[in-house]
């Protein structure tokens, strides 16, 4: 079952101000897919999720589950499972009681309920922790209990609100794989909210990037990464982040300072040039010159922190092959720019030009 949001808008009005938390959101979440809702803090991700869940009423716009308009439907009638940011496990109930809770509301016979609870607990690998209280579990285990509680009623839609934000790096990696696996096994249409682009990129079938309540871009993660529509999206995706330079288009070429880094068909103008960290190829007579300030080894690769008079930030970062010789702190380094890792953005509108 797919989810369609039509011109979804949410305005929080307070005494003398109003916040457009979600602005005219128009997206379709394909049936059986995992979609990542991505954006910086406060951009309206949770608000969108809560509107899909029915906990918040949209100011305007419609929400469809399949053919059904659910905009006015009460949350409990929508057949959704929601995993909260901090899990919201009932602290006084055991894992088993927590998972059974939704089933008891649905008046499922006891034997069947127990069986279903055990099955879903086994699916998320907590079948042996059923008698513990949430406090006696690790963060990752709690999160899996929350997922089990959401899944046990066989929802049509699973909503996850930054479910990994409380976990340490290793556990986060592990549980996000697990979410992906569970989603694939159950085939439930899933919306996953996060502000961590890496997380969204790694497990989503599709991502939706938001800013100030407005959708910026949606598509397959790699596609969005390779073809950002504007500076915001380019900046938001990728670690280390993309580097920006003040550039100019002239004589049919893209210039940073007086160095011509690529050809360009754009009309002459000042532009903002974005170069991904992996877009710099060290070469004797390369087109861009940078000064190396610092060298960091990250496994197979070498990361250099460098400066250039035209950089937007004081320093920026390129990732180069560790085998390359002659890279020394304090020296200048030349390199060519890979065309598919370099974008030009309009100076004022920030939309993508090249």
């Amino acid at each position: 079952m797919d989810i369609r949001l039509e011109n979804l808008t949410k305005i929080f009005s307070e005494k003398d101000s109003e916040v457009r938390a979600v602005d005219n959101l128009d997206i379709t979440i394909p049936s059986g897919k995992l979609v990542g809702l991505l954006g910086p803090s406060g951009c309206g991700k949770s608000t969108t999720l809560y509107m899909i869940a029915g906990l918040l009423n949209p100011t305007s716009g419609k929400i469809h589950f399949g053919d059904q308009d659910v905009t006015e439907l009460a949350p409990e009638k929508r057949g959704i499972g929601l995993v909260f940011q901090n899990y919201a496990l009932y602290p006084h109930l055991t894992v088993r009681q927590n998972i059974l809770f939704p089933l008891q509301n649905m008046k499922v016979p006891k034997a069947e309920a127990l069986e279903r609870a055990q099955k879903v607990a086994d699916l998320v690998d907590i079948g042996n922790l059923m008698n513990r209280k949430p406090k006696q579990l690790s963060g990752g285990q709690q999160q899996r209990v929350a997922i089990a509680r959401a899944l046990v009623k066989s929802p049509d839609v699973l909503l996850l609100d930054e479910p990994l934000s409380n976990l340490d790096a290793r556990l986060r990696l592990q549980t996000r794989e697990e979410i992906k696996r569970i989603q694939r096994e159950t085939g439930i249409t899933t919306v996953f909210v996060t502000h961590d682009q890496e997380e969204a990129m790694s497990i989503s079938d599709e991502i939706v990037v938001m800013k100030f309540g407005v959708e910026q871009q949606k598509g397959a993660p790699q596609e969005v990464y390779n073809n950002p529509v504007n500076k915001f999206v380019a900046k938001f995706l990728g670690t280390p982040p993309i580097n920006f330079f003040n550039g100019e288009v002239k004589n049919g070429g893209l210039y940073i300072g007086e160095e011509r880094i690529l050809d360009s068909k754009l009309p002459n103008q000042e532009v903002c040039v974005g170069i991904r960290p992996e877009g710099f190829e060290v070469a004797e007579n390369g087109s861009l010159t940078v000064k190396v300030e610092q060298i960091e080894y990250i496994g197979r690769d070498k990361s250099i922190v460098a400066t250039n008079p035209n950089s937007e930030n004081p320093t920026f970062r390129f990732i180069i092959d560790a085998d390359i010789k002659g890279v020394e702190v304090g020296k200048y380094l030349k390199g060519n720019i890979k065309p598919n890792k370099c974008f030009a953005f309009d100076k004022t509108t920030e939309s993508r030009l090249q």
Partner: protein
Amino acid sequence: METKKNQWIGWVYLAPAIILMLVFMAFPLIITTIVAFRNDYRIGFGLLQLVYPADGFDGIQSYFAGLNYGFGAFRTVFKNEYFWSYYMVNTLIIVFVSVPLTITLSLLIAVALNSIKKLQKFFQTIFFMPYVTNSIALGMVFAVMFGSNPNGLINSLLISMGNNAIDWLGAATDGNSSALMIRFTGMAVLIIYIVWQALPFKILILLSGLQGIDKQYYQAAQIDGTSKFRTLMRITVPLLSPQIIYLMITSFIGSFKEYNSVVALFNKDGYPVTGANIPYFGTIVLYIYNNVVMMPHVASAAALILFVIILLFTGLNSWISNKFVHY
């Protein structure tokens, strides 16, 4: 050296509190205990009599023989014809009726208050009024409301609906109502008064407890289609159990010591106006107060008895509640 010095300073800081505790709590407690076992308390002898033989002091040999300690005062208490049937029974009725009633009511009111948005502060203030009002003044208002003559507020209502006036507090002079009836209506009014007066503080505590509960539990429950009643019983009450148990223990103790309300509604003897001088509405503390001038050792003995009851009951109470606090 450093830590020793710090400890020393700690004691200095604590000293005022400790000294006050010793003077006003420990000392009276000890004296009360000693006095309670004194068989022949002599009014006017002050503290001296704790060591002074009853027959006067005539030489060290007869000194210990002359001291008259024993269980006499306790016997007096237990033999009092009203102690069990009125003072004790009334106290137990107050404890076991008013406390569960107050806690249930305050929980429901707190939940209701917490769920409304408009006028919440207004109603909160209304419910808090009894707390800041003088209890004797409140008692007088109640006495007027439940006045025995047909002009009493409740009686006028009853009459206007075609019923007979009721001698609620046993204050009528005609003496038509039976003793049992007076005791029943009087205790009912007393309990209403106690409950009403005890509500504000409990509502306040429960309301702040409610506001500390993460809203996400309720959102989760809502998404799972939990009914209102089930949400209250399975989520709110367990999550409030620390506050509820705190209120239970303190209000059980408080209502074992009920006194003000009786004096406010009736009189300092707990007598109804009609009938003989029988403490229909007396409580244990009322008994203690009424004896403290003429028979301090009897009052002390009663105080000790109450102390032991409260101690045992509170122990039982916290033992039970430990099994019910869920997290």
